[in-house]
């Protein structure tokens, strides 16, 4: 086992998956000769034949549309959208075609593709390079939505996604790329899509979170632990399908739920989790379900004070934990 960053984990997993199965190809803007804006695919062009590392023009709609056609026709494309913010021109292809092809064809065709997109803020990307887009896609039956948060999870989930028979939206938090390190086995392995992971054991309250916020939540939980507040953290790993059982099991134990995400609150993914727990776990709850999310503003601003305010920080999480713990 080696210690890797999230970025290295994506790089190595994709690489090995391509070595193993020649149906796997990657395509996107600047992914080939230049190795990707974040250097995720650095060195690929030297290693693989050119038609497996496809540099595309600046045309997101076509990257996805073409990917869907390839996937339906026997290949396993991994399409990269340079920044999640640029995915919207391809929204139609994803929602109308990728998500429906199996349903409309009565299972005659499927769409085993992966759409990778770095998302999230904290890098001064400003209005068009910082957004979280998971809620849009989580709303669409037919798609799977995966958000890995650690190097270990990234490798296992990406390998599963590549071999999943259905379209998988694979969102990588760009701030975690180089920030988060961890041990990753050398061989390819799968983490099942649809299984959450308990990232921390606790008794007093449950936090549901993913992405960069997961790491902030762990830090905040360590801080309050000194004062005897015991926090359990559930990382869903995949938003669709959602491991409802593990969330309910945890809430049954702690009786309190704090949902944290960077995406804005209104109609965010947390709303669904809150609704499910309110419905299925009502009897166990000792406090209102709380959400700590990005504010409901149209985009993440550039200015650092505003950006920091937009992103829930360790202090914000700590305060929210203390408040809920006291309830």
């Amino acid at each position, binding site marked *: 086992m080696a210690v890797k960053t999230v970025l290295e984990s994506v790089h190595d997993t994709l690489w090995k998956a391509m070595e193993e199965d020649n149906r796997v190809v990657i395509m996107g*803007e*600047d992914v080939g*000769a*230049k190795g990707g*804006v974040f250097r995720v695919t650095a060195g690929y062009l030297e290693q693989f034949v050119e038609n497996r590392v496809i*540099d*595309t*023009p*600046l*045309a997101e*709609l*076509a990257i996805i549309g073409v990917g869907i056609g390839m996937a339906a026709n026997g290949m396993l494309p991994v399409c990269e959208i340079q920044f999640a*913010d*640029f995915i*919207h*021109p391809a929204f139609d292809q994803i929602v109308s075609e990728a998500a429906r092809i199996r349903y409309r064809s009565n299972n005659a065709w499927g769409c085993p593709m992966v759409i990778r997109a770095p998302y999230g803020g904290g*890098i*001064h*990307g*400003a*209005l*068009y*390079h910082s957004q979280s887009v998971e809620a849009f896609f989580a709303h669409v039956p037919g798609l799977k939505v995966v958000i890995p948060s650690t190097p270990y999870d990234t490798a296992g989930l990406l390998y599963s996604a590549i071999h999943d028979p259905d379209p998988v939206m694979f969102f990588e938090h760009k701030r975690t790329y180089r920030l988060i390190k961890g041990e990753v086995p050398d061989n390819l392995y799968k983490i099942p899509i649809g299984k959450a992971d308990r990232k921390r054991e606790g008794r007093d309250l449950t936090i549901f979170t993913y992405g960069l916020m997961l790491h902030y939540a762990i830090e905040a939980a360590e801080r309050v632990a000194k004062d005897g507040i015991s926090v359990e953290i559930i990382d869903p790993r995949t938003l669709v399908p959602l491991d409802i059982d593990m969330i309910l099991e945890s809430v049954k134990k702690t009786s309190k739920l704090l949902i944290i995400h960077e995406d*804005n*609150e*209104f109609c965010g993914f947390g709303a669904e989790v809150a609704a499910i727990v309110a419905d299925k776990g009502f009897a166990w709850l000792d406090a209102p379900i709380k959400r*700590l*999310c*990005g*504010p*409901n*503003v*149209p985009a993440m*601003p*550039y*200015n*650092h*004070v*505003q950006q920091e*305010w*937009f992103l*829930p920080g360790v202090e*914000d999480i700590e305060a929210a934990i203390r408040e809920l713990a006291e309830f």
Partner: protein
Amino acid sequence: MAAKTAKAKKESLELEMLLEWYRQMALIRVFETNAEKAYQEGNIAGYHHVYTGQEAVAVGTFAHLEAKDHIVTHYRDHGHALARGIDPKRAMAELWGKATGTSKGKGGSMHLASRELNFWGGYAIVAAHISLATGIALAEQYRGTDSVTLCIFGDGSTNNGYFHESLNLAAIWELPILFLCENNLYGMWTPAEEVSAVRDMTKKAAAYDIPAKQIDGMNVLNVYQEMQEAIAHIRSGKGPYFVEALTYRYRGHGAGDIEAYRTKEEVGQWREKDPIVQMSRYLTGERGVPEARLEELQAQVEAVVAEAVQFAAESPEPEVESLWQDIYAKPFPDSMSHSQGRS
């Protein structure tokens, strides 16, 4: 005698105009150098794309524009903003993310804008703004004005659906819009010819029967002369025009670009065609402008930029509350405070 004075007057006018172009190009160059310095010093962050090398395109084109005309551009927008007359202080403050910036710090480098100047701003979703520009032109046509809408984008954008759909619309509706493609040979790190089926971008305009020409974008006099016809065509109601300006960015795509995709020789060859050097040769040679006059202009723009940097440095950060401003024309009442989310 009278004729002679008139000629002398015209020449002096023209010279003043040329000197103004020189000043604008020098201003952009110095501004960009200082912006890059501020970036290195950690005062500017995020994605940062400078215009160094391409100055003649903006300056030579904008010289034809009037206050009523519109400019809609992409994220490589510092030079465009300055050439349109945005206060360098407010532009620099925006790069620094300050409350005094053109977008009060919300936008940063890629989204400079000014309503007063009909400068609609830089747009960071590549090619999306081409549709906006098309709509802006349609509104002007509807109102029956002779305003021209200038839409600027790079070679990379011409491979995108927004571009093609918009050109088709502009052609069928004969819209008063100038599509200006600044072909600097690369889209991010990819050579234009690797991702475009045609090298000559004017062929894409030809597909929609839009009159088009390819011009040398490194010489401001040339840009000005070539644009005359295009602007006159549009202003007289004959519909859209497409110009591909061949140009070059001296610096990387953005901050931190290691530029492995091109050679130092190539950059050197283009630097030999430097728009500012060409203009200074012309002015001192053919127009007999003393070197000292150009040095004076240079000193002047350096002072302007130094002042802009100081202004940016001393300006306050925006208030956190401004996060919730300008979302709707009228904010929601408190009872619907989900508009705020976390408070």
